[in-house]
């Protein structure tokens, strides 16, 4: 019971941290998805140079740990005179991350569109533009939705890494509170519950979507 009362006391500070976490996740998704779509097109482009560039951006974004990219933006780039606020660096790093992951999911989604759809569009004489934007993309994006929601959850959890570059997000708030009275067990449990309170329902919604779409496929 005492835990609950103490948690109530911590909550205001935790909530502002949670707000920062949600903001960073929101920004990285908002910019990451469109960039991901662009990357997925680059990766499937005919032009070798475009394809190689796209592939490199995707593979680094997925292959290197988010923490490393975070450090690269925050500690690495300032040495070239490009300095960011810690929160900006976090947004940039996670945007790269989410763009790379979502590009793979979108590419798979676009490729899952039945070949017949392309053939029908061609046979009808639709332009390449119309074929892509009106026929292929709406279908491909639809099947990518659960995966993209997964990326969003992953990004939200990923914001916890921004702690490492002193962004005042949820994890950092928890750490600050904890270092005042060394009640680490309590405070990190509360932090974990905060993350879970958002991630778990989001996962359930994703699974629900996935099941519904499997039924209608």
């Amino acid at each position, binding site marked *: 019971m005492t835990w609950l009362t103490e948690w109530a006391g911590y909550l205001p500070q935790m909530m502002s941290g949670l707000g920062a976490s949600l903001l960073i996740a929101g920004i990285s998704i908002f910019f990451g998805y469109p960039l991901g779509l662009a990357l997925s097109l680059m990766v499937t482009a005919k032009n070798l140079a475009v394809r190689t560039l796209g592939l490199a951006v995707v593979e680094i974004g997925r292959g290197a740990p988010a923490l490393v990219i975070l450090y690269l933006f925050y500690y690495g780039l300032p040495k070239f005179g490009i300095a960011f606020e810690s929160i900006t660096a976090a947004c940039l790093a996670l945007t790269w991350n989410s763009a790379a992951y979502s590009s793979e999911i979108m590419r798979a989604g676009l490729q899952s569109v039945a070949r017949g759809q392309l*053939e029908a569009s061609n*046979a009808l*004489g639709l332009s390449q533009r119309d074929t892509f934007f*009106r026929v292929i993309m709406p*279908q491909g994006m639809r099947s990518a939705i659960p995966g993209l929601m997964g990326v969003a959850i992953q990004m939200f959890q990923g914001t916890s890494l921004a702690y490492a570059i002193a962004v005042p997000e949820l994890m950092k708030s928890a750490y600050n509170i904890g270092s005042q009275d060394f009640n680490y067990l309590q405070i990190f449990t509360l932090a974990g519950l905060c993350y879970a309170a958002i991630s778990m329902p989001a996962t359930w919604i994703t699974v629900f979507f996935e099941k519904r779409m499997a039924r209608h496929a």
Partner: protein
Amino acid sequence: MFHLLTTWKITMPLSEIADGRIAPRFGIKLDNISKHYGDHVVLDDVSLHVQPGTVTALIGPSGAGKSTFLRCINLLERPDSGTIQVAQHTIEPGKDVSSRDLAALRRTVGMVFQSFNLFPHMSALKNISFPQQKVLGRSKEEADERSMQLLERVGLKEKASQHPGRCSGGQQQRIAIARALALDPGIMLFDEPTSALDPEVGLEVLAVMRELAADGMTMIVVTHEMQFARDVSDTLVVMADCKIIEQGDPRAIMSDPQEARTRRFLRAVLER
């Protein structure tokens, strides 16, 4: 069955464009079409001339190249060599084809697929109207009016707002036929239009195709429906081993095939 066709011809042809005008009928000349994938030959120097307003049925064992040949006509498959003449256009697919020629070809030639290939994210009406707006530049009102007219003719007016997923296979295929007709094609290609359907459901699709044939639409039909091939087609073309081995009057070929390979195939499909 055959005399039924005359009663089928009702007041308004299925392929009417507007005010009783009918889309111009085109013939098609395909000469020396060849295609291979790597070492594997799919079409070996195939030629076929189709007169305007006639129905050609393409039959033969699977793997004979029927579908590939049909898909070469509107360049869904790119032949390695040969010439295609449709209306006033001559296309040599072995060389570079300008996008203008390609667009003109595909506007003249409508196609119906075995797996319907309706756009699942659009309603039946939208499936038919959307290409009209984009390809022919019709206004939404014009396009919708034409679509509704065609949906009524294929007996699916009440399905206009439904998505393809809510329609049976036979209904989807009739919508697909309406979608192709809406672009006022001079020639219609059918790639095994009833193969994915239950036999009974296939009948409703065949009925629409019979009506279209009676209108005088130029049609090339890849099919396993021997009854349809015999009753409706003007020319029967038998393909085997990447070639056309026999062509002519359907009744004559079916009752008295000249080639041993044709005989073997017909025996297999007719005497089961």
